[in-house]
């Protein structure tokens, strides 16, 4: 391998570095007075855009029933094995429903594959990024925590229709 030639040889002034150092200092000095980007969580909360992938949730129709038909595809596609679905039969038209539906939030990597694979648009990524637990058991979210009424997920559903 030949030695790569520099694109430009440095002049004496360049070699002193001083002008560059002062430029740098000037830059940082100026930025001290620029507006700050920090948000003061938890008083001010970040409202993510629709494309944000927060914790996955199950869509609950207006009549209180989940859309999910417990097909298990999300569970199969999940690269982190976070989802466990147990199906059973229901009298409703959809025939099967998830008797238990659990997502282990410690395993979940928020990849969104479950949302992408779901044939029923029943599992979507929410804007919720506040996931706190003090033990492993609490990190397993059941249907009680996963079901979110469809009107609260309008943003995401619209986003999916437009871009998925």
């Amino acid at each position, binding site marked *: 391998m030949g030695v790569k030639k520099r694109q430009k040889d440095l002049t004496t002034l360049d070699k002193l570095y001083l002008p560059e150092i002062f430029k740098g200092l000037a830059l940082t000095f100026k930025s001290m007075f620029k507006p700050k980007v920090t948000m003061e969580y938890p008083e001010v909360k970040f409202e993510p855009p629709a494309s944000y992938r927060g914790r996955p949730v199950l869509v609950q129709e207006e009549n209180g029933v989940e859309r999910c*038909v*417990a*097909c*298990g*595809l999300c*569970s*199969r596609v999940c690269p982190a*094995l976070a989802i*466990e679905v147990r*199906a*059973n*039969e229901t009298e409703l038209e*959809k*025939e*099967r429903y998830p008797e238990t539906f*659990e997502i*282990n939030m410690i395993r979940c990597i928020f990849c969104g594959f479950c949302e992408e694979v779901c*044939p*029923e648009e029943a599992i979507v990524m929410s804007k919720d990024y506040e996931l706190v637990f003090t033990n*492993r058991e609490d990190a*397993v979210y059941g249907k009680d925590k996963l079901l979110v009424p469809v009107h609260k997920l309008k943003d995401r559903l619209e986003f999916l229709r437009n871009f998925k």
Partner: protein
Amino acid sequence: MPKITIDGKQFDFNHGQTIIETAKENGIEIPHFCWHPKLSISGNCRICLVEVEKMPKLVIACSTLAADGMVVNTQSDKTIAARNAVMEFILINHPLDCPICDEAGECKLQDYAFKHGTGESRFVEEKQHKDKRVELGPRIMFDAERCISCSRCIRFSDEIAGRNQLTFIRRGDRVTITTFPGEEFDNPYTMNTIDICPVGALTSKDFRFKSRVWEMSSTNSVCTGCARGCNTEIWVRDNKIQRLTPRINETVNGHWMCDDGRLNTFKHVNNEETRIDGPHIRVDGQLTKVTWNEAVKEAVKRLKSFNNTEIAFIGSAFATVEDNYAFQKFSKANFNATNLDFARHVVPGSGDDILICEDKTPNSLGAVLTGIQPVADGMNLAEIINGIKSKKIKALYIMEDDIAQLDSEYETLLAKLDLLIVHASNKNKTTTLADILLPVSTYAEKHGTIVNVDGMIQRMRPAVATEELERSLDQMPMSRWDKFGTKFDRWARGKKYDAKPSWKILGLLSQELPNKLKYKMAEDVFEDVSQHVKEFSGLDYDLIGEMGVKIKSDKITAKV
């Protein structure tokens, strides 16, 4: 020999073979829905269309006989176009909701749609709607929308089960399956139609919606419902058996198994109410859980307090060859046992000439061959019972059989014994009388062999983990869940029972006695068997393999 050319390759065939059979024999797959190797040809689905040179139109491979010099093309443009057309046609009224359908994952239509479908439909009209939940029989649920009218189920019940119970009614896109008036689809083999139905139209009421097929592990095993020993696969999720399906073995059960075997031979393995978890000793009239060590010490101590002639041993046709062999060896070597026998469970008139046998135990031949018989002038089962009555027999050692259930009088008799040691997996009448109760692994939790009515020796493998069997370490089949589960995952916390195979328990007991059984694995026991029992000589687990081996013996009585 006549020759046929399929896809440019020449093959020999026998006269009378169809194109599809010849192709299958030679590893060329021609798609088919209605054709089944064990059923008559109906030729109604048309997916098997292939191009044959010099024939003006495409022909169906399932009913066209192969002829000498015939040139068949299964991949020509015409064939593929026809296949696509048939797929599109079948899918016109078939609901496109695999996510709901229980067959997904093992569905022929799904597979073919993936392999041979164009992926789009020109059908924009409303699909035909039919009944989605029809109870065809006590065990079968029928979804009329999913049926593709292949008639496999009709032909099965007609030709294999020998009961003409199903038929098509209506025509065109309204055609559907129903039972004859006043009939129910209830023959003893109905559930095989679930397996052969190429779609999810027929489902098992028992297993329906319980689990996706890809979420379970499957283990090759053998049914223990009767002396036929149909080959099965055990499907396990969460360390619980979810279903049994037949495994093809032409010399035993062909493609089939009976409904009773399929439904009623695994529930007890899962039954947390009745499973015995850990050894028990009777203390103050109550069965109390103790450690293995305590139970073994107690059993040996109490056995030793009797004269050898006061003890009787009862083996079992439910237990494996290994267990029975170890049982007779243990009792003869340490207690000079002569009073040795096992109970037969024969229900006269319950058999048929399809699969079901009158002998309801899977291994009676194995028990006989391994020597579970009275020695010299020792007592047989009936004499042992009399011996208990006459107080000649004071201690009874029962391995894996519910003796108290055999006769109404036995229960009171067994209660009179000074000592009753029982090996059992589930609570039953005998175990409630036991003084010492030793929990055994069920057939789905151990390695072992059984011998069927025709002398086929076949292997069973563990499908369910126990406390002494670890799924990955003991190389049991694993589903994806099993492979990646940690002890913190709920699915990896399925119940594991504290139970051991009988030969192992006997080995533990023998450690406290002069003649020790030095087996480490089931294979060691079988090695011993093959060296000492002439019918099994030269055999080992590898030779028996998945399909079993037929042994020669004069004790095989053609029909039991």
